[in-house]
């Protein structure tokens, strides 16, 4: 049996340094649990200080944009679920909104309310994953179990609602697939009533916790100007003090009619980003409660618009009529959207999730570019981490909050 030797290569800029010279280049990932997926960081160390970080992405690249060009507009929907797989419905809605903008479709009021409710539940579920995973990375194991317990309640509701826990593909062009049952409404109401108290418990474990505070405060600071220049969006931008939220700045799905506040941080460090996300969950509960009230008021309304050119026929009719079945088949396989370009950005839990769609009026999409906020959250890791200790990477990665399914596409 031969012995194996491990060779560590020293970065050239460190090897020539007369003072240090003890440089070490290490790989973190792509199978490291704290990198939240298949992210790889090439880190040049000088002692325990990180001199240079290079994020390497692409290990989960599946060519989503190319797939869209081959599949057509309608059949790409299930693929959007698998972008940011902790909030599939948010991706569905972003994609649907872009196509609706291109086709000029208006979603009925009840459909919009259902979408808002889904988006806010998804945001809570995604932020709970952030809280749990960042917690366990920094040693707070209890938080992980408690947040996942809460998240599971949301997934139970979505299971009953759409038939799946995850990867729901519940949204359609022109609205959503089916109406909401009263049972689902009741369960959601019960969850929203209990959730703020649960969140308080989790926050009590962390916000004033000495270890949590020391590991996050002043770690990974970024100023507002820098955050903007580095294309950060969402909670990461708000953590630096920029009160920018697409739900307020460019309202979609009727967000202008809901009352909620946009929490912002001051220091732009990991701790502020954490505080922003916790407060966002509370605001999401506020929005979801308003949406639930509106659902009650609009009971019996349509959730799917009617437009024979772009929108699926009602499922009940498809089951009994051959013409409707053929029509559904045509919509799925041969959807033709008007020629032109449209961009729709939505406020996802990670930042601005955008879909830039280009059509030439034929069946085959010309281009579907997905503006994934996670990629730019990854890009900024060197800015936040260089010059800091190796152990800070875990806090920084956790606080930037990305999902590799979306980063790599």
């Amino acid at each position: 049996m031969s012995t194996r030797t491990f060779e560590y290569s020293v970065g050239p800029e460190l090897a020539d340094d007369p003072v240090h010279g003890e440089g070490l280049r290490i790989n973190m990932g792509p199978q490291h649990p704290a990198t939240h997926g298949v992210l790889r960081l090439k880190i040049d160390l000088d002692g325990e200080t990180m001199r240079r970080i290079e994020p390497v992405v692409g290990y989960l690249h599946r060519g989503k944009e190319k797939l869209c060009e081959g599949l057509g507009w309608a059949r790409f929907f299930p693929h959007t679920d698998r972008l940011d797989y902790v909030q599939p419905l948010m991706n569905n809605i972003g994609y649907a909104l872009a196509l609706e903008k291109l086709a000029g479709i208006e979603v009925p009021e009840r459909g919009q309310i259902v979408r808002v409710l889904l988006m806010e539940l998804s945001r809570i579920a995604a932020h709970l994953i952030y809280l749990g995973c960042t917690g366990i990375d920094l040693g707070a194991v209890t938080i992980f179990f408690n947040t996942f317990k809460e998240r599971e309640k949301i997934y139970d509701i979505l299971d009953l609602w759409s038939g799946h826990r995850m990867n729901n593909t519940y949204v359609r062009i022109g609205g959503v697939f089916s109406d909401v049952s009263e049972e689902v409404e009741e369960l959601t109401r019960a969850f929203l009533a209990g959730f703020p108290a649960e969140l308080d418990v989790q926050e009590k474990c962390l916000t004033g916790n000495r270890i949590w505070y020391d590991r996050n405060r002043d770690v990974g600071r970024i100023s507002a100007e820098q955050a903007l220049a580095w294309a950060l969006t969402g909670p990461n931008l708000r953590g630096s003090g920029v009160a920018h939220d697409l739900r307020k700045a460019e309202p979609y799905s009727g967000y202008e009619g809901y009352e909620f506040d946009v929490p912002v941080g001051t220091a732009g460090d990991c701790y502020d980003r954490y505080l922003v996300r916790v407060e966002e969950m509370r605001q999401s509960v506020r929005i979801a409660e308003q949406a639930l009230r509106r659902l009650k008021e609009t009971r019996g309304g349509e959730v799917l618009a009617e437009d024979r050119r772009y929108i699926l026929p009602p499922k009940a009719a498809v089951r009994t009529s051959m013409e409707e079945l053929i029509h559904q088949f045509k919509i799925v396989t041969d959807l033709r959207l008007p020629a032109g370009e449209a961009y729709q950005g939505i406020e996802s839990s990670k930042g601005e999730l955008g879909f830039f769609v280009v059509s030439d009026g034929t069946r085959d999409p010309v281009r579907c570019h997905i503006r994934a906020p996670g990629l730019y959250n990854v890009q900024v890791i060197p800015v936040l981490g260089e010059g800091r200790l190796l152990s800070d990477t875990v806090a920084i990665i956790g606080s930037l909050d990305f999902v590799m399914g979306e980063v790599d596409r």
Partner: protein
Amino acid sequence: MTATAGGAAVASSTRERVRAALAGLAHREIEARDGMAAVEVARDVLAAALRRLRDAAGFEAVTFVTAVDRRPAVPRFEVVHQLYSVAHRDRVRVQTRVAEEDPAVPSCVEVWPGAAFMERECFDLLGIVFTGHPGLKRLMMPEDYRYHPLRKEFPQQGIEPDRHYREWDEARRRTWRPEE
């Protein structure tokens, strides 16, 4: 459609700001289907236009940089920069056509450092060269990959997805001998 109506009102003041910022530079305004302010500029003024849009029109952030393969149209590629202004809450899209023979545009990493990954991705998947980029290499595909997958001639099923494995396997088979 309410969203478009509101967007159109916003876009008219945006257009004036963009027009003022680009005064003196050759550009053409485009009617985009989603109502966003959009301009087309030639490649040689793109760098100046982007810089002016940030400094004079206040677009502090770049949302995405990508390209559209318009084959068989000539020039073939349309490079798209979409910018965002947090202060004014509006967007502008800047388009530049480049030919297949010389698919190069100036990099805007100096204006917005966040564009680095956007340009790397665009180079990787569409083969657009961003001149002046500090480290233009592939982002998603392996570094020795020979194709640009988002180009229209690239097949849906991919090309040589298992080349690394196949070469390793062939080498292994060549050198393998049964144990004595």
